C-alpha cells in the first residue's frame, strides 16, 4: 500500500512537471503560423490570418475577410491597413490571448495527454477554453464555448520564429509613433468591463446612433447608446439608465443590474 502511494505520488509529480514544462514552452515560444478562426452561434464569422508571435508581442496579418494588420507591442496596440496604421485605444485580443489571460487568472481546470499532445481545459467566467498544445509548446487548436457561441482557432502551420519584432514590424511599416483612433474614452472604459459585445446602427428620431450590446464580466447585459446629439432613449421595465455627455457626443448606459450601473458610474467619475 505504501509503495503504491509513493508510486502514485511520483507519477503525479512527473505528470505535473511535464505539464508545467509544456505550458512554459507555450508561454515563452516565438513562432510564425497560419491560422483559421471560426465563430459559430447566433452569428457566424471566420478569418484567415498569418501570425508572428513573441512571448509579449504579436503581429497579425488578417488575410480574409479583409486585409488588415494589427500588432501588440510593449502593451500598446496598432491596427489598420498596411500603410495606414493607427494606435488602437482598445486592446485587441485573439483567442490565444484570451486563453492565456484566463489561464493565468483562473488557473488550469484539467490537463490530459492525448496522442502525444496536451489538452488543457480552462473553465473561466469568460467561457470554457480548450487548447491543444503539442510537445514543442506550439498551439494547434484553441476553442472557447461561451453562451452558445463556439469560437475556434486552428493553426495550420506553425514554425519557430527567429526574427525579432522590429524585423517583422519594419516589413509591415509598423512604426512606434502612429496617430490614434479618435474614440470616446468613456466607451473605452466601459468596454474594459465587458467580455464581448455586438454593435449595430439604428435611428432614434432623426438621429443615427450606435447601439452596443455587451455582456458585462459579471454576467449582466449592458446596452450602450452612442449619439452625436441628445436623443430620447426608451428603456424597458426594470432597466436603469446612466447618461454621460462628452464633447459633441452623448452616451447612454442601460442595464437592469444596479451594481453594474454603480460600478460604471464610479468608473466614469474617476
Amino acid at each position: 500500500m505504501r509503495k503504491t502511494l509513493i508510486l502514485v505520488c511520483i507519477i503525479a509529480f512527473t505528470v505535473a512537471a511535464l505539464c508545467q514544462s509544456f505550458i512554459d514552452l507555450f508561454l515563452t515560444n516565438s513562432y510564425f503560423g497560419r491560422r483559421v478562426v471560426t465563430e459559430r452561434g447566433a452569428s457566424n464569422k471566420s478569418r484567415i490570418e498569418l501570425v508572428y508571435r513573441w512571448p509579449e508581442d504579436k503581429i497579425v496579418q488578417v488575410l480574409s475577410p479583409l486585409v488588415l494588420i494589427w500588432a501588440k507591442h510593449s502593451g500598446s496596440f496598432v491596427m489598420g491597413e498596411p500603410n495606414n496604421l493607427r494606435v488602437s485605444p482598445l486592446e485587441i485580443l485573439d483567442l490565444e490571448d484570451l486563453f492565456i489571460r484566463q489561464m493565468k487568472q483562473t488557473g488550469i481546470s484539467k490537463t490530459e495527454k492525448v496522442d502525444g499532445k496536451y489538452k488543457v481545459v480552462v473553465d473561466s467566467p469568460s467561457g470554457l477554453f480548450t487548447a491543444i498544445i503539442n510537445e514543442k509548446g506550439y498551439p494547434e487548436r484553441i476553442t472557447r464555448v461561451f453562451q452558445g457561441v463556439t469560437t475556434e482557432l486552428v493553426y495550420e502551420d506553425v514554425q519557430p520564429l527567429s526574427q525579432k519584432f522590429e524585423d517583422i514590424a519594419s516589413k509591415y511599416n509598423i512604426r512606434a509613433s502612429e496617430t490614434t483612433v479618435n474614440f470616446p474614452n468613456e466607451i473605452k472604459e466601459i468596454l474594459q468591463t465587458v467580455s464581448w459585445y455586438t454593435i449595430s446602427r439604428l435611428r432614434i428620431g432623426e438621429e443615427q446612433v450606435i447601439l452596443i450590446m455587451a455582456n458585462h464580466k459579471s454576467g449582466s447585459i449592458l446596452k450602450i447608446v452612442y449619439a452625436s446629439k441628445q436623443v430620447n432613449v426608451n428603456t424597458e421595465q426594470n432597466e436603469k439608465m446612466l447618461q454621460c455627455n462628452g464633447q459633441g457626443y452623448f452616451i447612454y448606459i442601460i442595464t437592469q443590474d444596479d451594481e453594474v450601473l454603480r460600478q460604471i458610474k464610479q468608473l466614469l467619475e474617476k
Partner: protein
Amino acid sequence: MNEENFQKFLDGEIGKDELDQETKQDVKTYTLTMQVMKARYDYKPSAVLEERVMSKVRKKRELFSELLIAASVVAALFFIVFNVMPVKIPVTAKTQQVSVSEVFDYLSLVKLVGDGF
C-alpha cells in the same frame, strides 16, 4: 595773380588801383562769377513750372498712399475672415455624423479582428 593782394582787396584793405593788371582781371572774373551765382541762388521758378513739378511729386505720393491703404484693407479683411468671423463648419451635423461613423467603423474592426476582451 597776386593772391595776397587779391585777398586784401576783397577784405577792403587795399584799393583797386594798387592791384596789378592780372589780379584786376581775376577780380573782374570773380565778380562776374559771384553775380552769376547770386542770380542762380535767387532764382524762383514760375508758378506754372512749380505747379507742374509739384503735381508730379504729389501723384507719386498719392499712388504710394493708395497702395498702402489697399494693402492694409486686404490684410484687415484676411484677419477678419480668418480670426474674427465665427467659423460654423466644424459644428455642422455632418461633421458629428462622421464621428458616429468613426466609432462604429473602429468598433466593428476591433470586433472583426479580435475575439473578445
